[in-house]
């Protein structure tokens, strides 16, 4: 299969009063139709900014270089007008915070239908009918009545369902879900994940799931990329990553995810602090926190190397282990 969305050597930096901050450094990724890519990393790792760049939604002080291609169109060099033909129609985004991501003074129905009206020239009647269908599709009870409600009249979980319905309005080729469950109650989180699974299975769209939570990835993603300090440190199928994590950071993440099937005395954490992007350690950014650190890690930066099975990682230690 060919990839729908392809990111090639993406760099994103933000100008701040204290100098430039490199949020994303040389990230390459691709997603195929019908596939779910999980992008994992802690806050500040650049995982969200990678796809904000794809949507043309970087903050004003941000600049992106490299290539992001959707079906041959380079989104980074597209004009605002060209971008608007793509956003919402072919690539849609679901945001982290459903409480503040809907326009407070507009009725739900109008916020949904305007996507269709804008992109497909639908009339109000069709827009409303499709909005209703979508609300049904994301299992919102009493959908008809909700159309005429304002966002504050819905719960957080319902609002996130509305956000998902909104993303589905034009049946896009790519759906980017940026921490779609983080702001929700645990029980609601599970429901939203079920819904995303259903969307993936029925729609055949490529889904990018951005999260800090490996648990979320496990249930939904086909492939996983782990980001640390603006770079991808490990990439592979969800099975490989969970079964044989090779990068110490991935291993650390897995170790601190509580599991029901293994009995542990205490919660494991990764020692140390997330890195300061303005003052990254030399060599491998992870080395100050790495249990297997040795001299080379401090001097040189490991590159992302593909292993025979398709799994890739950027780690000297892991490479040595494999060579032995």
């Amino acid at each position, binding site marked *: 299969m060919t990839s729908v969305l392809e990111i090639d050597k993406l760099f994103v930096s933000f100008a701040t009063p204290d100098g430039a901050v490199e949020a994303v450094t040389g990230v390459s990724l691709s997603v195929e139709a019908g596939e779910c890519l999980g992008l994992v990393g802690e806050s500040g790792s650049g995982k969200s900014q990678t796809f904000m760049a794809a949507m*043309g939604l970087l903050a004003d002080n941000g600049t992106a270089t490299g290539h992001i291609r959707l079906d041959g169109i380079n989104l980074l060099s597209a004009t605002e007008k060209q971008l608007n033909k793509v*956003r*919402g129609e072919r690539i849609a985004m679901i945001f982290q915070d459903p409480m*503040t*991501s*809907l326009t*407070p003074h507009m009725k739900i129905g109008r916020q949904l239908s305007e996507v269709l009206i*804008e992109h497909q020239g639908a009339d109000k009647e069709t827009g409303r009918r499709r909005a209703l269908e979508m609300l049904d599709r994301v299992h919102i009870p009493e959908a008809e009545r909700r159309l005429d409600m304002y966002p504050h009249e819905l719960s957080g979980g319902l609002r996130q369902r509305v956000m998902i319905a909104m993303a589905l309005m034009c049946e896009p080729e790519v759906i980017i879900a940026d921490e779609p469950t983080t702001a929700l109650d645990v029980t609601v989180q599970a429901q939203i994940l079920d819904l995303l699974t259903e969307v993936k299975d029925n729609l055949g769209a490529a889904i990018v799931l951005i999260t800090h939570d490996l648990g979320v990835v496990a249930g939904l993603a086909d492939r996983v990329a782990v980001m640390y300090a603006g770079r991808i440190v490990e990439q592979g199928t969800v099975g490989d990553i969970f079964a044989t994590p090779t990068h110490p950071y991935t291993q650390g993440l897995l170790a601190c995810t509580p599991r029901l099937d293994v009995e542990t005395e205490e919660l494991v954490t990764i020692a140390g602090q997330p890195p300061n992007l303005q003052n990254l350690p030399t060599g491998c950014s992870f080395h100050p926190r790495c249990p297997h650190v040795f001299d080379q890690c401090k001097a040189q930066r490991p590159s992302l190397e593909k292993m025979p099975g398709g799994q890739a990682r950027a780690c000297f230690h892991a490479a040595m282990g494999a060579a032995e």
Partner: protein
Amino acid sequence: MWAYFTRRLFIAIPTLWVVITVAFFLMRLAPGGPFDQEAPLPPEIMANLKAAYGLDQPLWWQYVNYLGNLLQGDFGPSFKYKDFSVTELIGQGFPVSIQNGAAALFLAVLVGIPLGAMAALRQNSGADHAAMTVAMTGIVIPNFVVGPLLALVFGIWLRETMFALPVAGWNNGALPNRILPVICLALPFIAYIARITRASLIETLRTNYVRTARAKGLPFRMVVLRHAFKSAMIPVVTYLGPATVFLLTGSMVIETIFGLPGIGRYFVQGALNRDYTLVMGVTILAASLVIFLNLLVDMAYAWLDPKVRYE
């Protein structure tokens, strides 16, 4: 919601009563009276005058009388403009003031909101800095400075040109006579509204829901007008409440400078002349106006922000 507004109206009544009472007794505490002149009047004439206006009665009785008359819409006779009742004076002055005020407010909204919005959309550009410096100038140069300066320029320096404008008098509301006063009254409002609009729109453009709207692929113009603008207007509407108070005080200055027969000038003259009833009348009118307009602002809120529900 209607219940809420009805209740608000009922709360307005005690507020007004406090205003009336405090103003009434404060005025009477003032040393000197309305009939003081350079050459003191003979005592018997003074006594006659006082009796004619009921000023010889005990204070509490004057107060009760005043309230009673007020309930019938009678503000009493003016002490200085001998042939007029206060109601008549207000009847003449209020239309002048309200016309100027409304025109100034209209002008301020018409110029201030686009100015602020443009500055916000070109944040930190040269145009933004220029607009905001002009706005700051409009705020810090008081209209009692701007008024005389405008009069100097248009009334004196440009007297012989086509730009000459009358700088004094009302002339029954002829358009040229209104131009300078209205501009002068509107300038600080334009400045405030532009600043508020800019700050508020910048903040709104950073919200998550505006990001959502952009992610939907809506044209930027539509994102601003449909998704950002209404919320951004909330602080502007909030400002319109206090703005009316500004308008009232502004009119005191403007009407004094340009010699317009409005209630602001009547109030200043009345205060200087101890014209008790006139001062009272204008104060009560101003208080009612402020209360009424604050109520209007609250109603506008409910429209701008559906989360606001008045119980």
